[in-house]
């Protein structure tokens, strides 16, 4: 498969203006390539499209005609139920609040720590950095039980505090910021500090504005990560009032497995909970997808 797909690649010259002169073989190659890509893109996109369509269908129609793009009878019943019987707005409110605080916390604390580890000289710095590197490899999923235990010990279980505080800083965030500060010249800050600005003031007024690209990256990662977080909210709470979108919508799924006639409701919930992340994704699309490339050019 890979071989045949690769076949046309080198024949196509890099200069667009020479495309006209391509031979028949190359043109077939291009066509084949497009066909493969369009086919794959359909596989990746179509599930989302029919899901949106099905959220406007009746339960029966969604089950019987899953592939149909246009509902026979357009109904908003699923959405009405989400805002009626199901406490969807409560879940959304919790998620919005938690994600906002977690994102601000991570951007602030991680950049602060990253800056100190990159610029300030103090005893134990190398050790702390090595410890953060070590912690990077702790798999998140084995933390579920430990987190529950400590939250219970501290009396934070089933509180907003317990849901938020453990997420306020991540080793990965500290690492990203430290690497970033290592890559920008120190001279500007030195000037500010010679002029007598305090370290925090230098950091706040001079360093942070320069660090915008890294901060945006951290912002996207943190927001998307906390918006989609599921595991931590399973083990840090039990009250229904503290349900987030992930735990709440997941509870719509489990227990009704295979029944099949709740699909419009579940899909409507899935569509709504995806919108904020999708918006963020489209706003920062170029940065999200080009940065990996940009980093290589450095």
């Amino acid at each position: 498969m890979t071989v045949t797909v690769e076949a046309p690649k080198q024949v196509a010259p890099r200069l667009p203006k020479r495309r006209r002169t391509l031979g028949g073989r190359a043109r077939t190659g291009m066509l084949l390539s497009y066909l493969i890509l369009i086919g794959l893109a359909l596989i990746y996109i179509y599930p989302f499209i029919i899901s949106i369509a099905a959220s406007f269908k009746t339960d029966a129609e969604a089950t019987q005609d899953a592939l149909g793009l246009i509902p026979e009878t357009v109904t908003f019943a699923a959405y009405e139920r989400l805002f009626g019987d199901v406490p969807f707005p409560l879940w959304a409110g919790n998620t919005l609040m938690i994600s906002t605080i977690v994102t601000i916390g991570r951007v602030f604390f991680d950049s602060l720590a990253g800056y100190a580890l990159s610029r300030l000289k103090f005893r134990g710095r190398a050790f702390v950095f090595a410890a953060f590197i070590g912690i990077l490899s702790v798999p998140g999923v084995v933390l579920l039980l430990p987190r529950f235990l400590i939250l219970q010990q501290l009396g934070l279980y089933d509180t907003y505090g317990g849901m938020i505080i453990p997420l306020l800083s991540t080793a990965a965030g500290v690492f990203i910021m430290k690497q970033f500060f290592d890559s920008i010249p120190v001279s500007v800050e030195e000037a500010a500090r010679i002029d007598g600005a305090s370290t925090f003031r230098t950091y706040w007024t001079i360093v942070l504005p320069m660090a915008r690209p890294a901060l945006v990256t951290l912002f996207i990662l943190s927001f998307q990560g906390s918006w989609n977080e599921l595991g931590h909210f399973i083990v840090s709470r039990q009250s229904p009032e503290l349900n987030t979108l992930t735990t709440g919508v997941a509870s719509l799924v489990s227990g009704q497995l295979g029944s099949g006639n709740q699909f419009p409701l579940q899909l409507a919930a899935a569509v709504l909970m995806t919108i904020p992340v999708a918006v963020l994704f489209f706003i920062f699309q170029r940065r999200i997808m080009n940065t990996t490339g940009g980093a290589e050019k450095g």
Partner: protein
Amino acid sequence: MALATARPRRRGGIRGGEAREGWIFIAPAVLITAVFLVIPILLAFWVSVSDWNGFQSPLNPRVNFVGLENYAAITVDTGLDQKNFGIAVRNNLYYVLFVVPLQTIIALLLAVQVNRAVLRGRGFFRTAFYFPSVTSTVAIVIVFQFLFTASGAVNAVIGAFGIDGPDWFNDSTGIIHGLLSTVGITQPAGALAEPGFLGISGWEWIAGPSVAMSSLIMLAIFTTSGTFMLLFLAALQSIGSEIDEASLMDGAGPARKFFSITIPMLRPTLFTVLTLGLIGSWQVFDQIYILGGTSAGGTISTPAFLAYRSSFVDLEWGQGAAIAFILFMFIIVLTLLQRWLLAERSPRLRRSGKRAAGQSGPVEPPVAVTPTPGNPGGTP
């Protein structure tokens, strides 16, 4: 933080209060990490070697040290606990065997295609392939459940080719068992029927992923291939066009070029993607939890889910912690192996790794930092 602002710097020297300030700056991150990561792990380790039953604090004096009893219960003592663990390991093993190679190949395929210089609309294709990676696992699972019901979209499509699709998420048949039954083998013979490693018979070990697990394998590939595509794309873009042109001049054929030039140049990234995939797919939890974990005859349970279930549902806290620790050790070994391989094989090209991408003076660090399926950026 108010502390740091409130205290004026000593006039003494520029480096004057740096030690104190350094510690104040890192204090929040260090405190959160210590209290919610390091100490909890130690606490959980204690639980895994104790007989704590969930009442009061695990540190209260009536809790006893029981040594490796909990570990023995799931690994060597014959019984249901051992069997559950064995089945979970088997399920996850097949999951890894399918997910890791497939997601790597598909990600590479997507990257190579999207990277073509003359391709129009490559932004669109990139977006299409990457979008599933940013959506929540909960939403993706709902979409997949909808697609893979008995009367769902997938069966409608393959039905058009005359294939009678299964009830995907509820089908517990192992696909290798399924294949064997088509040639008339439905029963184990001889030694295969005996209980083997982890209390599971050889016949059960060779079952293959169940149809339900296969749906989850497809789900994983769907959500992670976009992230890994970006890693490959970055690496492909760093291969200069000179090399392309040189190979063209030397008369290398397309297949030859791909295997003799592109693949070797991509080797560090390939290592990164393979090991990240390996590490990520041994941690699969969210999908299993959302689906209830015990459906399809227990064939979608994994060690990560079993660790959760043993503790929070069966209230076998010690065993749950023991499973989590076995998984922890195993993943740490994989991670160390990855770091060692990357350092060993290609000292110069280390920066093509996802974490290392920021090492040599980039202005914008990559966003795709934690491609663990279903938990992007959420892990510490």
